[in-house]
């Protein structure tokens, strides 16, 4: 059965050459360049808050890429979870740790040369591997692959167990985050959802 699945992804010589891209591909590439550029700026800029904002651009661009790949539901989740909450959390984190608003000269650690080496090495390796493997693969984008209805169906007909496990994970993360944000002598239990008050309170201390 899985042999059949493996054959489902076509390794046949691409129906189109790389030199005559489809409209979708052009959009994908343009957005891809934007995403990559935003990501690079995000990890190099010296303005910490800007880094978070560039991250928003990169993650939003990725949502567009998901849409282009016909994975609608994933795209919306991406927008909701990342742009809606993760980035907000990150900004909170930056502010609560009193990250300077302007340029900070020491945004990068002394580990930069090593980081560059490892980053370049990983990029070289992975790109080589991926290009070598997929140089002739073609994605068939016809038909719905990720509508909300479809997603709901496959999630609940195939992936119930990890889904349930995730609920334990989320609850544990929530409880963990709350308990760590409370200060030690703060014995009164915060009501659910006042993580933020706890955070700000701790900041005031």
């Amino acid at each position, binding site marked *: 059965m*899985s042999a059949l699945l493996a054959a489902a992804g076509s390794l046949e010589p691409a129906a189109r050459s790389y030199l005559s891209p489809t409209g979708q591909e052009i959009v994908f590439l343009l957005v891809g360049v934007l995403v990559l550029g935003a990501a690079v700026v995000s990890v190099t800029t010296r303005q910490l808050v800007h880094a978070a904002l560039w991250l928003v651009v990169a993650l939003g661009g990725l949502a567009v890429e998901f849409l282009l790949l016909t994975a609608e539901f994933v795209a919306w989740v991406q927008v909701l979870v990342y742009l809606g909450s993760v980035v907000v959390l990150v900004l909170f984190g930056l502010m609560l740790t009193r990250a300077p608003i302007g340029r900070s000269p020491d945004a990068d650690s002394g580990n930069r040369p090593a980081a560059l080496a490892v980053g370049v090495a990983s990029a070289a390796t992975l790109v080589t591997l991926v290009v070598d493997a997929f140089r002739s693969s073609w994605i068939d984008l016809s038909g719905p692959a990720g509508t909300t209805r479809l997603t709901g169906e496959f999630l609940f007909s195939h992936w119930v167990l*990890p889904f349930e496990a995730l609920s334990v994970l989320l609850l544990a993360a929530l409880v963990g985050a709350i308990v760590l944000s409370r200060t030690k002598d703060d014995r009164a239990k915060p009501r659910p959802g006042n993580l933020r008050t706890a955070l700000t309170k701790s900041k005031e201390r």
Partner: protein
Amino acid sequence: MTTTHDLGQPVMTSLAVADPGGLIQSVDWVAVAPPLIAALAALAVLVADLFLPEARKRLLGWLSAAGLLAALAMLLPLLGGTRSTFCFTSGGCSYTADHFALAFQLLALGGALLTVLLSLHTVDAEKLPGGEYWFLLLSSACGAALLPAARDLATLVIALEVATLPAFALVALRRDGRGAESALKFFLSSVTATAVMLLGVSFVYAAAGTIQLQGIAEGLAHAPAQLKPLAEAGAVLTLVGFAFKTAAVPFHFWVPDTYVGAPLPVAGYLSVVGKAAGLSGLALVTTVAFRPYGHTWGLVLAVLAALTMTVGNAAALRQRAGTPHGAVRLLAWSSVGQAGYLLVPLAAAGYAGSADPLGATVAYALIYGLVNLGAFGVVALVGGSGRLEEFRGLASRNRWAAFALAFFLLCLAGLPPGVVGLFGKVVVFRAAVDAGLGWLAVVMAVNVVIALAYYLKWTALLFAPAAGPAAAPRRAPAPLSAALGLAACGAVVLSVAPQLVLQVVSGSLF
């Protein structure tokens, strides 16, 4: 959308394969009972925490212990045979309770139970927030119990996260600088390792077309040659996440720092249950999913094993008696070294091309788990700043604790009278030799000898005369004594009758 359709390819909608009778997979509740009960117990603790008055919070700990006992009891009806649930209509299941899963569930839940007993005192003494502590511990145990039964990569990854994520919070639960720092290191290493692992998973998925373990094996065996390098790299990257949990070198750096900063029972928990989770995941993905690439990961694991044991033991050897928290640090490095031994049969499985050597890992892990938790328990009992110096003359202050620790250390070292440790090592040794990994066996033997030095040094320290005036013997808290007694009795029983645990070596696991 302009696409060219591959005509030879059947177009299937999800409706065509989904079970027409019901949308949701059927569930065998008995099979999933062990992790499920742990999760339910966690919830119960969390709810009970809201209603219990401050003075009765101790009950929560006992409630957790009861929950884990119930979960352990639910292993018994599963002994008969293999049961699977959460099955796909197209074949394969997400959850399988076979002997392999049961053995590791026993380790995870039993280890968690011992940890609970060890923690009862710590939670009080260090004023940790009780309800959250027990809840997080039980959630993590639930993940560790789910992991060995998972049979697809999604469940495996999520279970690993369920086991790990609460542990971050547990490590930092003292909410002081040390706890925070150690949690930070643990967290960063773990998150990075997870990302690398997921990248590997995505490559494996691309090459095999599925994320069910059994399916991956078939898919990889038939994968086109073009995808092979990618698939092998993906397989190896997938191992990283589990190797991180197992504390294999070079993914081990977090271990000493984290153990030192964490509350002691949590450190013990990480060194046993965390390691068991990583190890079971490693065993599953290697021997089940990546079976066709046995020689690749066999070699990788063999090298990792050799590195791990050598680095762990060499570092443990350098621990000074006067360093604060030296005892925990020594145990941390020793656990790195032991992880090396645990990896040996896995590597052997890659070379032998069969899952038979896994039995040795299971047996050794069970032995190691029991003894190591015991050692952490004694260190917790001694308390203080955890310098090795403080163990000098323990025998004159607290004879039973000293004997217990000496016995645990001898078991870890693999010396008589800790015969069970010796047998464990012999079994692992055999696995390596049988698979033709002679060089690894030699490395292991040398390491066992190196390790003798620091285990014996510590043991000798216990019986040396106390340097200062002997402190008045502190009465050991009852639960702590119970846990230590349990661990010591277990180790003694196994030393007298090692076949109890060694029989898994001969039986078939999957």
